[in-house]
């Protein structure tokens, strides 16, 4: 098991290498040069000399592969992700200060997704073709069809029009007021969670129907168990194995979703930082955030793979 984890972590290296190259190159290919933006904003009279000066100061005059080696070398040997091109602030410090908020939002959304998806999926399966099943399935189709950014905007706008109420836009830190912080994040978490729950719920339902047809479930009935024990003890665990895989695959969608939610509800997480950085072409921040997100996605999938061992005794890590 330990050897397995170490091997999986080593496999992170090539993955992150390719990811970092792609991110590093693509951000520099976004139309709209940072130098132009800086010049426009600072109202410097734009002549060729000041351009080259600025480029050299920011290190953008070098060929791209040199820039890459410098950047990655600093990360590898000094743990230094560079600084923002605009504000001189350390990228890694900024990321680390915002990461917990994004993580919290993502985790809350995932909890909402599972709390909705698993019971509804199981209920839909064991009451197949009853009104409860139809309601559950219609709800999931609806949540699949409704984009979370639309729902988020609606929640921002309509309560304000009807009741003069709108979600708090001033961020409440968890350490100052945990309850207030949870309540603030609850709305985006519920919106994101329910939209994620749609696919998970359908997967749970399908797998549950499949498992309930298995011989060992009939054996469980033949032993005289009531429905709850049959479902919870004998069916659910086997049905959840593919659901866990699905959750791992949804990790990038979840992170993408938090970016959108942070933007709509003005939550100072990594997503909001990323969006601002992209609009300002702040290359070190963009590449830094993507690298961290890449690590997160790979680690989530490692956790998912390890959790198979808990669910399926046939899985042994070697």
């Amino acid at each position, binding site marked *: 098991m330990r050897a397995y984890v170490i091997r999986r972590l080593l496999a992170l290296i090539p993955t992150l290498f390719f990811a970092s190259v792609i991110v590093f190159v693509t951000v520099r290919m976004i139309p709209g040069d940072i130098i132009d933006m800086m010049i426009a904003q600072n109202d410097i009279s734009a002549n060729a000399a000041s351009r080259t000066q600025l480029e050299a100061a920011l290190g953008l005059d070098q060929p791209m592969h040199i820039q890459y080696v410098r950047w990655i070398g600093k990360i590898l040997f000094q743990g230094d992700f560079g600084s923002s091109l605009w504000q001189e602030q350390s990228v890694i410090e900024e990321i680390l200060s915002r990461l917990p908020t994004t993580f919290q939002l993502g985790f809350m959304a995932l909890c909402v997704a599972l709390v909705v998806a698993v019971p509804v999926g199981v209920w839909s399966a064991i009451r197949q073709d009853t009104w409860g099943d139809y309601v559950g399935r219609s709800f999931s189709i609806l949540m699949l069809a409704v984009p979370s950014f639309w729902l988020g905007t609606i929640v921002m706008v309509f309560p304000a029009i009807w009741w003069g109420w709108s979600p708090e836009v001033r961020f409440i830190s968890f350490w100052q007021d945990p309850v207030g912080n949870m309540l603030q994040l609850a709305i985006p978490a519920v919106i994101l969670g329910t939209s994620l729950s749609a696919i998970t719920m359908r997967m749970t339902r399908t797998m549950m129907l499949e498992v309930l047809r*298995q*011989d*060992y479930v*009939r*054996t*469980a*009935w*033949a*032993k*005289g*168990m*009531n429905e709850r*024990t049959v479902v919870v*003890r*004998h069916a659910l*665990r*086997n049905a959840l194995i593919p659901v866990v895989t699905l959750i791992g695959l949804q990790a990038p969608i979840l992170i993408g979703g938090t970016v959108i939610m942070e933007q709509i509800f003005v939550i100072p997480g990594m997503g909001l930082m990323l969006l601002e950085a992209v609009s300002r072409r702040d290359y070190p921040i963009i590449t830094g955030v993507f690298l961290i997100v890449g690590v997160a996605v790979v680690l989530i999938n490692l956790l998912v793979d390890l959790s198979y061992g808990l*669910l*399926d*005794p*046939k899985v042994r890590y070697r």
Partner: protein
Amino acid sequence: MSKLLEVTGLTTRFRTERGAVMAVDDVSFDVDAGETLAIVGESGSGKSVTALSLMRLIPNPPGEITAGTVMFEGRDLLKLSDAEMQAVRGDRIAMIFQEPMTSLNPSLTVGLQVGEPVQLHRGATWKAALEKAGELLMRVRIPDAKARVDAYPHQFSGGMRQRAMIAMALACQPKLIIADEPTTALDVTVQSQILSLLKELTRETGAALILITHDLGVVARYADRVSVMYAGRVVETGTARDIYKRPQHPYTRGLMACVPRLDGALGSRLVPIEGQPPDLSRLPPGCAFAPRCVDVTDKCLLSRPVLEDVGGGHHKACFVPANAAAGVPAHA
């Protein structure tokens, strides 16, 4: 004294795309305490559905028990509430299934699954149930049983899994065990071990056994009485000896002719029954076996024969007198 199990007029219907099908049609039989009844027939003859109907494990929809009574220990199982039936299953009546490879839950330990009925019906703690599971596994002669309590089904061979299923069935010392083709999926060498074990353990515990099989060799060795099923109906019933020595129904005689015998004349051929088992959604108005029967008469095509006593508790559902039949000779 009344019988342990008395099934009367049991009818189970399945709704299919081509209309309702009577998988079990007016089936009656009984089982005495400690007795072994074999239910014999081809695939699709309704023998497994009969077994599942007794346990009320027919998936509904599409299946439904539409008529009959199943009197067990003085109560009609078909009239019990779900909770009452759950108290019977696994405690008073246990079932062993055909596929040992898939009948055990892959994600739970064997010990937990074997001990589960004890925990469920006897209110034992899990610790006591697992201990009991170890004893049961030892009783079905699984080597190193105590250590195997914590093993998972995939670490067991097919024969060992079926032993574990038997242990599970015996857990609460049921009065009746229903074994639905318990050895069909196993190697030939393991088959007789499993059946002998099953027979021995039912004798020890005094449990009655309903053995569902298509193997007449099994019937001769292990059954006290036999019911032969064809197209959802019982066509012949009697003691194993009568069925074997004096089969009355042409179908039973056909089945006998398919079984290789050590005492058969040298060079004698096995005679297959011509034709296919009938499509249950399009049964002929007369005897269901008529299209394949070598002794068929006009009467067979028009009306359906019912079980009649031919002496000594031996019944058959056939119009043609056995001595007048020209067909396959019985082994006498």
